[in-house]
């Protein structure tokens, strides 16, 4: 079905949201791109899914999708989990866009909690679902105060959190939603991606958009933006992962999920990025647990 076909039905608009709403969201996105890392307020709409299921990401995707796009959704790296499947079918129905599970073929990728392993390109947009956009939230509960801290660049408190980590655990134990400093200015919460993915945020050729529906915030990283993970001089940032190769494809360089197999201590480490893993297996790579 093309856009013209749908326009025959008066109640229908491409990609669920009406055009004025999309304009409003696009304005917020453009502002976010102009001021990298700054949280732009926007009038988040009620979406046909509960908060926490990616309402922010869905609205951003709806605003940037065009009929020619090829759409991919990942949830914790996987294309086949409930969240990913339902959002993908949502846009198949409401936008009629082509969908794919291949990272390299997609032009818009909506993601929850991961950045794909395959390198992104300038032709792609990565849309993050963000539960809590404010990196200072649990340190300073007053929103009026955190906004002031952002505007005055008072980020000492962020290091207090890292200090507490080291004093309690001996190392920086924050392993996801690891704060980054964008272009030496705003401190940003990169959504709950593992800190393993943080280096991929930096200098990325793709546009990265972050949408928080319940919190009504959009922020963005334009292509090739510098983003540095916060750390201490004597406790540098460490993008750690499980010290195993993937059990199915044998990859040493990808982020792994741990799967418990039985109650006798059996476990399997597999790539969390299912597309990456399948592609490697298709190329003939095999891990030790592959059937």
């Amino acid at each position, binding site marked *: 079905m093309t856009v013209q076909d749908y326009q025959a039905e008066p109640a229908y608009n491409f990609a669920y949201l009406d055009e004025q709403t999309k304009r409003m969201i696009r304005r917020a996105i453009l502002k976010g791109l102009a001021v990298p890392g700054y949280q732009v307020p926007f009038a988040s709409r009620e979406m046909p899914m509960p908060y926490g299921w990616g309402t922010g990401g869905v609205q951003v995707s709806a605003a940037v999708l065009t009929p020619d796009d090829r759409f991919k959704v990942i949830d914790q790296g996987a294309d086949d989990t409930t969240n990913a499947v339902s959002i993908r079918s949502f846009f198949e129905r409401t936008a009629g866009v082509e969908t794919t599970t291949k990272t390299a073929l997609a032009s818009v990728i909506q993601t929850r909690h991961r950045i794909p392993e395959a390198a992104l390109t300038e032709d792609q947009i990565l849309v993050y679902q963000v539960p809590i956009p404010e990196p200072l939230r649990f340190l300073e509960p007053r929103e009026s105060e955190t906004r002031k801290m952002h505007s005055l660049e*008072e980020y*000492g408190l962020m290091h207090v959190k890292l200090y*507490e980590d080291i*004093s309690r655990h001996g190392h920086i134990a924050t392993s996801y939603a690891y704060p980054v400093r964008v272009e030496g200015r705003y401190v940003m919460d990169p959504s709950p991606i593992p800190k393993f993915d943080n280096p991929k945020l930096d200098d990325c050729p793709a546009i990265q958009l972050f949408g928080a529906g319940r919190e009504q915030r959009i922020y963005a990283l334009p292509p090739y933006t510098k983003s540095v993970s916060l750390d201490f001089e*004597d406790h540098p940032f460490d993008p750690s992962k499980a010290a195993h190769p993937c059990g199915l494809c044998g990859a040493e360089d990808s982020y792994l999920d741990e799967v418990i197999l039985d109650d006798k201590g059996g476990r399997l480490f597999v790539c969390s990025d299912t597309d990456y893993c399948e592609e490697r297996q298709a190329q003939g790579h095999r891990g030790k647990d592959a059937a």
Partner: protein
Amino acid sequence: MSDHPLLSVTGVTKRYGAHIGCADVSFDLYPGEVLGIVGESGSGKSTLLNCLAGHLAPDAGQVVFDTRGHGPRDTITMSEPERRMLGRTDWAFVHQHARDGLRMGVSAGGNVGERLMAVGARHYGDIRGKAADWLDRVEIDTDRIDDRPSTFSGGMQQRLQIARNLVTGPRLVFMDEPTGGLDVSVQARILDLLRGLVRDMGLSAIIVTHDLAVVRLLADRLMVMKSGHVVESGLTDQVLDDPQHGYTQLLVSSVLQV
């Protein structure tokens, strides 16, 4: 003492609608000097202190502070980032309730280190070393560096708050009833500590209190406030031993004798 005042206050006035918070307060504070402000509840002491410390914007008046980099500057007209920077470096504010001045969910070491990190310290070992040093100086066992202040007694919390404020080596400390709500033996210990620190570090301080014993011990000079106005000021001993104004006489005679 230096010839230039560290803080020069002229005509500070703050109104709450028709009510007067404090009216037309002027004084000079010289480096190393401790000024006490006493008065009954509602006399405008805390309003004045908050105006001086930049927490409240006064309706009129000037508060000129002798900054390290740029000489005397009016802190009321300076930009907010500059004023907040002063609040993290050259100024310190000790609240009456330690809970207001501490982060209760952060360890003692983190509390002390926060000001260091806020001014750019990024070396964990150094920050921790300094925090331990300061805990030691305010007589908190350094073993408790990783404990949260919620596990501390009231007196320890107040001492921790003092350490957290003094770690960046401020030159002017604002104190709002620093010993209020503590029992007398703990009060005595805190006063002793404060007196030592003020002397060792050459601090200037403005102490707001209704406890005349506190100012007797700590303050060089005294201002007595009533209904938003300063009714009497002078050397502490002079004001307390030979009060001139009727209200001061009442205040001095109201102290319970044991």
